[in-house]
């Protein structure tokens, strides 16, 4: 039966080449438009820390202005002050904890002709690497003791290691940053979390930093924060760098790793106790508002998916609807044109169910072909997006199709084609036997 339907389907597609081509093209284009945006959205809203989503938590406490919440409705600031980051980190109440900020260093390669260059860097603590499962090509992160002793150690990303050391195992080698010597402890393998979950405050869609060094070294050296700094209370006049560190300005991101729900509750209690204690010395004028967000919640809270993508997704779905309406109309036309055949088949004994199966099978064939071509149009659509954003290098990470998207494209095409075939098929099945033979 299967082969018979296949044969009938092929015959029917060949009998109306223009109509069939139009239908297949409409499905392919509709799927392409839809899947291009779905793919981009899928990548943008991905959770690179999904496997640890119930263990990692972003820490927030509310040290903001008593008269004016940081963000409506009554949200705490998204970063911490130095005082709080230091106190919470050093308390060590979580299984792992890390504080970090974005900075920049000037790398001075060895050799006389090598020109110094500036490198985006991250000042962080030892726990950062195991917490975010950073893969290492050589060596590892630094020890917790280096954080305490302010040891000048550094972790490089693969690309920077290739540039500086020709891709060799550079563990133990020395690197000069702003005229100071650092010891390399590890080289990170290819690692591009999308979005950059550990720091969503600036641009969530950019490459991770290429250089990592201890938070304590960066603070002691007065390294600039190149991410966002926000203040509500003026820094004490004439107090300089120390005044800034003792101020209510927020500029540090903190994450903790908590292994189970009890640990999470304990940590929340600890935060409450900490804020209560600070209130006694006149800080934290707002009501208690501590938050621990897991990566998925934090991405949701920071609204990492651009609004434009949602607008385009809506339009793309409507686009697919138009393509399907088009297909339904064309299928209907085709079915009506074949009314005579159908009528004859019914007269010769084909049951309604047989006819139904035959037509649905045919629609399915169109769906499969449309879906396969749809993968091609999606690919073309993604290349189009890539081209439009060519100046924004990171776009290459956002326009990648994975297997789940390929599968979804085909499934969507087949479902669309079958849905489109329902009404025309129903009309066909209701043709009475021999009714169309009378004319002759």
């Amino acid at each position, binding site marked *: 039966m299967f082969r018979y339907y296949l044969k009938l389907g092929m015959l029917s597609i060949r009998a109306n080449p223009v109509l069939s081509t139009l239908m297949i093209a409409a499905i392919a284009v509709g799927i392409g438009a839809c899947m291009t945006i779905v793919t981009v959205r899928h990548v943008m809203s991905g959770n690179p820390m999904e496997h640890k989503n119930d263990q990692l938590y972003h820490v927030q406490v509310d040290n903001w*202005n008593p008269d004016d919440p940081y963000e409506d409705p009554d949200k705490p600031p998204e970063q911490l002050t130095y005082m709080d980051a230091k106190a919470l980190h050093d308390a060590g109440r979580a299984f792992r904890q890390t504080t970090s900020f974005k900075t920049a260093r000037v790398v001075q390669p060895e050799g006389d002709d090598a020109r110094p260059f500036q490198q985006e860097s991250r000042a962080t603590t030892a726990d950062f690497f195991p917490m975010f499962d950073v893969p290492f090509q050589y060596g590892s992160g630094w020890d917790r003791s280096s954080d305490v002793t302010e040891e000048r150690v550094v972790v490089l990303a693969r690309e920077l290691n290739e540039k500086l050391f020709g891709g060799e195992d550079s563990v133990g080698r020395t690197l000069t940053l702003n005229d100071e010597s650092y010891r390399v402890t590890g080289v990170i393998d290819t690692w591009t979390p999308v979005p950059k979950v550990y720091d969503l405050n600036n641009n969530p869609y950019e490459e991770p930093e290429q250089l990592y060094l201890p938070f304590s070294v960066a603070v002691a050296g007065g390294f600039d924060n190149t991410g966002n700094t926000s203040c509500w209370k003026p*820094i004490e006049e004439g107090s300089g760098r120390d005044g800034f560190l003792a101020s209510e300005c927020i500029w540090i991101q903190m994450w903790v790793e908590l292994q189970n729900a009890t640990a999470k509750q304990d940590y929340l209690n600890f935060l409450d106790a900490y804020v209560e204690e600070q209130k006694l010395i006149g800080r934290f004028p707002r009501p208690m508002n501590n938050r621990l967000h897991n990566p998925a919640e934090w991405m949701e809270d920071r609204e990492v998916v651009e609004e434009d993508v949602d607008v385009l997704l809506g339009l793309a779905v409507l686009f697919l*609807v138009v393509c399907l309406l088009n297909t339904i109309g064309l299928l209907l036309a085709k079915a009506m044109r074949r009314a005579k055949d159908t009528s004859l088949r019914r007269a010769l004994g084909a049951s309604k169910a047989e006819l139904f199966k035959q037509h649905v099978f045919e629609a399915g064939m169109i769906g499969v072909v449309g879906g396969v071509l749809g993968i091609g149009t999606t690919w073309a659509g993604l290349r189009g997006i890539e081209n439009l954003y060519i100046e924004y290098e990171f776009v290459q990470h956002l326009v990648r199709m994975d297997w789940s998207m390929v599968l979804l494209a085909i499934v969507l095409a087949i479902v669309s084609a079958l849905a489109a075939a329902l009404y025309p098929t129903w009309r066909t099945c209701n043709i009475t036997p021999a009714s169309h033979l009378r004319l002759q």
Partner: protein
Amino acid sequence: MEFGPVWRAMMRNKGGYFLIAVQIAVTMAVMVNAFAIMQERSFKMGRPSGLDEANTFALVSVGFKPEMDSKALISEDLDLLRNTPGVINAVATNSYPLRQGGWSEGLHREPGVGKSVSSSAIYFVDEHGLETFGLNLIDGRNFSPEQVSWDKDSPDPWPATVIITQALGEDLYPDHEGSYVGKTFWFDDDNPANIVGVVERLQAPWPSWTGVERSMLVPLRRESNDVRYVVRTEPGYRDQLMLQVEESLANSSKDRIIRQVATVDEARKLAYLGDAAMIKILTFVISLLTAITGLGIVGLASFSVARRTRQIGIRRALGATRPAIVRYFMLENFLVSSIGIVSGAVLAVGLNMFMVQAFSLTPLAWYVVPVAMIILWIVGQVAVAGPARKASGISPAIATRSI
């Protein structure tokens, strides 16, 4: 003409016509709203920044020796820049419009740190800032050299004089009429600022910020190893001077690197990359959608002609002229299109109301819907013209033939 027969014939085969009408309606809804978004984006991209954009570039000097006399280096650099032939003026600043990164402050009408009444982008400049940026001073005067002070990275205390944009004045003093010069506001409880000048326009560095027209010039030179220079040149000298200046600054000191050398045009392109891409994507979507709907009309009309070959032959045999046959199909399409277009207009306005709510889009301009209606009517008539002409070519003799 023959509305009645056309309508009754359509009613005998509702399904196909209904599909085309719905298709036209959805096409219309997408078209109108996509156009509304495009219009909004192109308005956003068209706003001037206030700078002399075509003749301005910027670069950053990063000193990397821990102990550096950055004050001396900045003074030397500025002398060098200002004395370069072809350079109109140059200034050391923290940012410039379209750069997408900068400094903002909450402002208060009374001393205090409570809820701020307005906020503004801050540009730290000296008395050369006004000319370098190419701003139009509409009230008051420029900073005098004595009003410009040196400080570390952040102002401590804040300079007592500022130049604001007209838009910032309007936001700070909504009920005030007349000049803003001489008025005072506070950064916090003990840092007042006196307005000495007002410029017509100077955008904040963030083009998507709702307060993008609110900014101020603050007379301060910052002593820092990282310093950004903005350079304005005589028309036509920008590209050549950009290379030359980068070279001479790089050579003047080995203890720093020069980076982020970029024209304001390049900054503009980057700042509006997403908006430009959105306009292109939507243009593509609208064209493709109209083409698909047009093809759908052609397909269905051809089918309908083929199915009615005999009837057309009979009509021709009974005396209908060729134009009458063409008119029949054109009218049929006009009726279907009209149903689709009118429901499409309702759908489009509804979708727009939703988008205004959900994505804070500006509401539709009055003419968008009528224009879209006319376009879709024309598309329908053009699409049906081919099959209709084919139909009119059917010979009356067909009627006499039995199939």
